[in-house]
């Protein structure tokens, strides 16, 4: 088996990783919609999906089935090739960008081939992510144009103009981090954030020497929200404004593809924010405190217990089976995380996923809280405030680096 692995590294190493990551990503996308609906609902003092499965957990499945069975009309006069290409392009690009994200530090070996916890480890990982982001404009622009409808065209033009404008401040706000790290490789950027100031405070880029990248982080996150066309920058696709913007004339599975592409971009940007500014898979507590290695196990155990206790008194019969079942599975996972050798493996991905979850929560929180920007205010904000601030960030970061290296 080991010789087979040595001769066919693509098949044995890359393919399983791709399959696993893609599977996890698509499931996470589906449950992100559930999460968003629940959080926005609770912000608005209501419950959100509750009846389709226990606590609405089967709602994404119901939505998926609905999307598959809906009628799929093509508008008259639409350019068929481009009309079919646009959602496919959007989703393909959004899913490809996960390939360069590192989930953890450990090198582990499959059948003798050593590999890391990311699908690829490119020296230009960050640049590839930006390349994919800039290609993502096509999905929106082509969708708007090919639908042969005035709402779509206007929405598509507005969306793509917005995306192109905010790409500038998105890439410039990251230059501070690149200057401090000296590399485009995402794994190396995370590794350079190891260590702790005075033994306790982690050396993440947002609070690192020579210049804490706080301004960079806020600029990055704001530009990213505008880049992914999310509230409060979602004028071009909000129903109250332009019927539906660029995806007005799309229905059923093609609309679902746009939807998935948007959420996938959200996940990618959150991953990028944690890697570049918040230490990626590094733990916030010092590594020398060995008890922190059991935090994943404790978290899973507590969540499992809570699920079991809540689930046995749930309203429906189905819920009374599924929820405690999930709780028991989590407790088993917690027990597994206490076995020797496992905590070090689980540490990295656990902290990474926790931080990504925080950023996704912030995304959804902003959607539920802030009112929408008008389009001219939006463009003015991007060009007149964010871009000069990001250039300023580059200048003062370079100044700080030069002054501290003398």
């Amino acid at each position: 088996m080991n010789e087979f692995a040595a001769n066919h590294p693509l098949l044995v190493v890359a393919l399983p990783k791709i399959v696993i990551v893609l599977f996890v990503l698509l499931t996470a996308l589906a449950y992100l919609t559930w999460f968003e609906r629940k959080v926005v609902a609770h912000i608005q003092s209501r419950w959100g999906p509750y009846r389709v499965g226990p606590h609405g957990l089967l709602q994404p499945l119901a939505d998926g089935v609905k999307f598959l069975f809906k009628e799929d009309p093509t508008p008259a006069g639409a350019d068929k090739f481009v009309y079919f290409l646009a959602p496919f392009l959007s989703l393909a690009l959004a899913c490809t960008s996960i390939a360069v994200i590192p989930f953890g530090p450990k090198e582990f070996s499959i059948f003798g081939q050593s590999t890391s916890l990311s699908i690829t480890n490119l020296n230009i990982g960050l640049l590839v992510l930006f390349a994919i982001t800039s290609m993502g404009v096509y999905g929106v622009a082509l969708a708007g144009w090919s639908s042969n409808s005035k709402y779509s065209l206007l929405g598509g033009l507005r969306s793509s103009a917005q995306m192109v404008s905010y790409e500038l401040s998105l890439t410039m706000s990251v230059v501070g981090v690149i200057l401090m790290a000296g590399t485009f490789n995402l794994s190396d950027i995370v590794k350079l954030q190891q260590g702790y100031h005075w033994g306790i405070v982690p050396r993440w880029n947002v609070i690192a020497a020579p210049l804490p990248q706080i301004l960079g982080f806020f600029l990055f996150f704001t530009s990213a929200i505008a880049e992914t066309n999310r509230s409060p920058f979602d004028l071009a696709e909000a129903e109250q404004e332009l019927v539906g913007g660029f995806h007005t004339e799309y229905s059923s599975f093609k609309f679902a593809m746009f939807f998935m592409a948007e959420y996938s971009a959200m996940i990618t940007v959150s991953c990028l924010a944690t890697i570049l500014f918040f230490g990626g898979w590094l733990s916030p507590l010092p590594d020398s405190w060995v008890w922190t290695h059991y935090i994943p196990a404790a978290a899973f155990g507590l969540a499992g217990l809570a699920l079991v206790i809540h689930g046995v008194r749930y309203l429906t019969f189905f819920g009374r089976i599924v929820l405690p079942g999930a709780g028991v599975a989590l407790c088993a996972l917690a027990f597994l995380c206490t076995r020797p050798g496992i905590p070090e493996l689980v540490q990295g991905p656990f902290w990474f996923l926790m931080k990504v979850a925080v950023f996704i929560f912030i995304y959804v929180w902003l959607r539920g809280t802030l009112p929408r920007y008008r389009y001219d205010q939006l463009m003015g904000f991007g060009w007149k405030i964010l871009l000069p601030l990001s250039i300023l960030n580059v200048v003062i970061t370079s100044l700080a680096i030069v002054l501290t290296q003398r």
Partner: protein
Amino acid sequence: MTPQIAVFLVLAAVAVAGAVSLILQHHPIHSALSLIVVMVSIACLYLLQGAEFVAAVQIIVYGGAIMVLFIFVIMLLNAGEEERENLSRLAKFVGVPVGIVFLCESAYWIGHATSQMSQASAESVSTHDLSTLLFREYTFPFELTSFLILIALLGAMVLAKREDTE
């Protein structure tokens, strides 16, 4: 037939197919999409040669900015499908033969030249080396180029400015 040569052939075929499709398509948007295919395959060819930074920047700049501009213009000007005209007599009897002769001749000379070239080194150029070259040896042309882009930007703004109607 090493994997490198196989990948090169595939990418080159895709690039040429994109370029031919660019010319033969009826609708300008389809031509623009074919040009995007050409740009991306050229970026992959750069990557094959080890120029990773140039490949990424090719996609970001050409694929992500310049072609977006082309597509905006085509969309805003509502350029429609072109009507098929038959080739004029000049094109048929002079243009196509001269084109084919020129193609054969350049293929011959390129083949002749590359058979005498030594094998290029397979190491990739890092961004560090590229930026050292750009900011130390070629600083003056670099600054001049940015000046040139600034002049182009100002010229475009002046030309596009609406005149005050009085």
